[in-house]
């Protein structure tokens, strides 16, 4: 996972990182001991949620930002329980 290398390098330079990872690549976050990972149950290519699903995007963003305040050890992985949802035209 390319971003795993970025996370480690940026973190080693002193800047804390949180990585948003789709479930398909959660094992990479674990293998690479990236500092803080938020796992989302979304298909590959939709880490923040479906197009125009602003409330899901915000939920993912806030959960990711929260890891900056709650993480105390490297390799912290938190999984959001919500499944992916398409943005329906009637919603």
């Amino acid at each position, binding site marked *: *996972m*390319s*971003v*795993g*290398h*970025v*996370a*480690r*390098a*940026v*973190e*080693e*330079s002193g*800047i*804390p*990182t*949180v*990585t*948003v*990872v*789709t479930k*398909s*690549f959660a*094992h*990479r976050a674990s*293998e*690479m*001991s*990236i*500092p803080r990972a938020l796992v989302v*149950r*979304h*298909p*590959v*290519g*939709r*880490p*923040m*949620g*479906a*197009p*125009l699903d*602003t409330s899901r*995007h*915000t939920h*993912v*963003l*806030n959960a*990711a*930002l929260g890891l*900056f*305040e709650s*993480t105390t*050890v*490297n*390799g912290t992985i938190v999984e959001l329980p919500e*499944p*992916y*949802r*398409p943005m329906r035209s009637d919603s």
Partner: protein
Amino acid sequence: MDEPEAPDSFGAFRESFAYGERNDLNFKFMKSMTDAEAASFLQKLLHQLGDTYDTGDAMPLIETAYRTQVDSYSPAPDVPPSMFTYADGPLAPVQTSLRNARVGLLTASGHFVSGDDPNPFGEIAMTQERAIERSDHFLSSTPLLSEIPVTTPATELRVRHAGYDIRSSLKDPNVTFPIDRMKEARDNGTIGGLASTFFSFPGITVQGRLRNVLPQWVERIHEEDVDVMLLVPV
């Protein structure tokens, strides 16, 4: 008279979704499945589609495709670990509260600003289709980091990536590059501010070459004077 073409085997059909004649990056994972697994997957999808005719509810279809994708990407127990497996790693201390933090963003989504195309391999105005054709080149080349001023309107963002289906990102860049959501977080006080420039690169790349350029990338990121950094692979 030409001989009629032999029909694809099921295995060839399955594999053609990964950069073949039926390329579909949402389903390229079928290449790594066995014929039996792929047959079972397709049969289940079609069965659930039959239910969708009556219910209009596509969620079971989505859930089946999602779970199969997750299973396909997960390493089998007998597969040796990646060479980039680490027992431990760094953890930089967070020095300020979120409400005061200046936040940066780097994604592997392949976004860039209209008029500032990185033109990979010197190819001008490369299309998504052409990028997919050249996926092997991306996998053997040094990745190019695009700089995206945070003032960039979403309508000025472009995306190109040979490794994932960009259709969702075309409909809404925030799916993979949450620039608008981060501006909202800044505006409502959730975070203190944003970097002046965000970053993106196409994450389909060779890991060794990426690691070689990381010192320059990290140096550039530090010029943004951020307190924390959000990273979004696809």
